[in-house]
């Protein structure tokens, strides 16, 4: 009996591993398959034909990738421009409505996103923002601000107030103190929030779909169109491309974001 004690654990671990790596393996197979149809359990022929198709200079994929990256970077800029001052204020000033304000940033998540984005799209029509990069960036920023503000506020809260007082005391003005003491010390947290916003924007689908299409196409939209049309290879390759920054940044965050900052998220 005791000889088999490891069995339940092994089965559970195996199932978890399958749940995580099964879809990824499927993705990898699709990305390398040239022909794969029912009832074959594995691709019929392998090859890189679709990679050439995705990466040929005139392809939709490269254009979408470019769009995705530009939109993600702009979203980071817009989000941080708001999140840094807001996060600092929330962390430092004893605002009576602090809790409420933090909650307000969560609000866009609380409502069904399709309903929200349909109405956003309607309003954006009025301003001529539909189908523009700016419109998509705004939609993504609303989404990204949640992470950005919460993480930035945690990062600022982790900076000892005495360190700022020491700078003020020795003659640095408030702005100088912020840029030479507070911001450098909060930088790892701010970078982490930038990364989260970037990844969120890169993966965002619903908002882009309602506000950007058909003029602005991003990788997730391309992936969607490709899989609807049965081009699983294209979808798989785009998915793999999207996976690269996600994994890379996750490793970065895991390495550089300190536990004391993470512990303050949402407080």
């Amino acid at each position, binding site marked *: 009996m005791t000889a088999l004690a490891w069995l339940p654990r092994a089965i559970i671990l195996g199932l978890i591993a399958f749940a995580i790596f099964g879809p990824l393996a499927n993705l990898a197979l699709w990305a390398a398959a040239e022909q794969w149809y029912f009832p074959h359990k594995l691709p019929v022929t392998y090859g890189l034909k679709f990679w050439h198709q995705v990466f040929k200079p005139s392809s939709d994929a490269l254009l979408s990738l470019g769009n995705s990256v530009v939109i993600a970077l702009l979203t980071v800029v817009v989000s941080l421009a708001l999140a840094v001052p807001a996060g600092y204020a929330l962390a430092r000033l004893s605002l009576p409505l602090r809790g409420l304000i933090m909650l307000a940033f969560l609000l866009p998540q609380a409502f069904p996103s399709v309903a929200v984005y349909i109405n956003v799209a309607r309003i954006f029509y009025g301003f001529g923002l539909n189908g523009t990069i700016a419109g998509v960036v705004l939609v993504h920023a609303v989404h990204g601000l949640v992470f950005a503000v919460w993480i930035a506020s945690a990062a600022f809260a982790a900076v000892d107030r005495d360190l700022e007082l020491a700078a003020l*005391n020795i003659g640095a003005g408030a702005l100088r103190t912020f840029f030479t003491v507070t911001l450098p010390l909060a930088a790892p947290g701010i970078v982490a929030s930038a990364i989260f916003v970037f990844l969120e924007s890169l993966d965002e689908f619903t908002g882009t779909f309602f506000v950007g299409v058909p003029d602005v196409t991003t990788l997730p939209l391309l992936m969607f169109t490709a899989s609807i049309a049965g081009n699983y290879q294209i979808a798989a390759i785009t998915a793999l491309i999207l996976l690269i920054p996600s994994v890379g940044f996750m490793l970065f965050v895991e390495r550089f974001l300190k536990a004391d900052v993470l512990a303050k998220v949402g407080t």
Partner: protein
Amino acid sequence: MAGASLEIDRVEAAYGPVKVLKAVSLAVKPGEFVALLGSSGCGKTTLLRAISGFVPIASGRISVDGRDISRLPPDRRDMAMVFQSYALWPHMTAAGNIGYGLKLRGWDKPRIAERVGQMLAMLKLDGLGDRMVTQLSGGQRQRVALGRALAIDPRILLLDEPLSNLDARIREDVRHEIKALQNKLGITAIHVTHDREEAMVMADRIVILDAGEIAQVGSPEEVYNRPASAFVASFMGAGNVVRLAARREGDGIVLGAGDLSNEIRVPVGSISGLAGAQVIAHFRGEAASLGAADADDADRLVLRGRIAQASYPGGHWRYGVAVGSQHFMVDDPRRLNVGEPVGIGLPLSSLHLFAA
């Protein structure tokens, strides 16, 4: 630059509805070293932070060299503070920390380097300028913090319990070093501490704060030997308290503890504000002596009791003496046995008497 004078005039401060400072007034002469002494919550740190501008004052005036600075922001007060936590910037080197204030003042790089070098040498930190402050020991960090404050040649140096995070052994040395530096540079210094001995050793004048008010201001010798109130007496180490009966007799007052002591005569003026028939006497264990239980000197109050406890902290014995239901700590060089009847001999000069 020589130190500035500092004048605090009826300053009040509050955290919400709680008044932390109640009309505190204090004048500090240029180059003087003043210690703000008190237990936690007495308002000493708040007073220091009000001077530095971190805590807004509700009313009153703080002036430096006669110029009102009460409304100036902290960065324009030309003071430098050494924080209890040192508050060194972990993303900078020791030299970066010390040179920060000079960079703000627009000094050029070679001049900053020279000044930082002087500071490092003065604080015995040679060769450590390029270290990140996180790689320094507690004592070294403390010196860097001091160097950062002194580098800008402040007119007033504020010390917020800067020694409380140091080992007891290092602390003794640093006390004297800080005092010597302050003397040499002629800076006015305000030092917050809860450590009586630290205040006594370092300060020219001690300000004892109690519940947001100044209980007494005086030289170390004054507050030690002539405490103005029962609070100051016990805070300054006269922790033995005995209640005595007092009665007027001609031009003197006769004091005694009933069956537990003899009676002595003191001049009327020695107890201010005496109205009732009760007096509280504070005395230090080291100012008393142990003798025969039945001694009856005219110039000494003798409390009769017996030894309840004995310990040897070094140099002398320390006895817990039970007198009636009370307990006193008394030092004596002789070895005595627990249970022995003794008399605690208290010369008039050792008694701090207050009206009850």
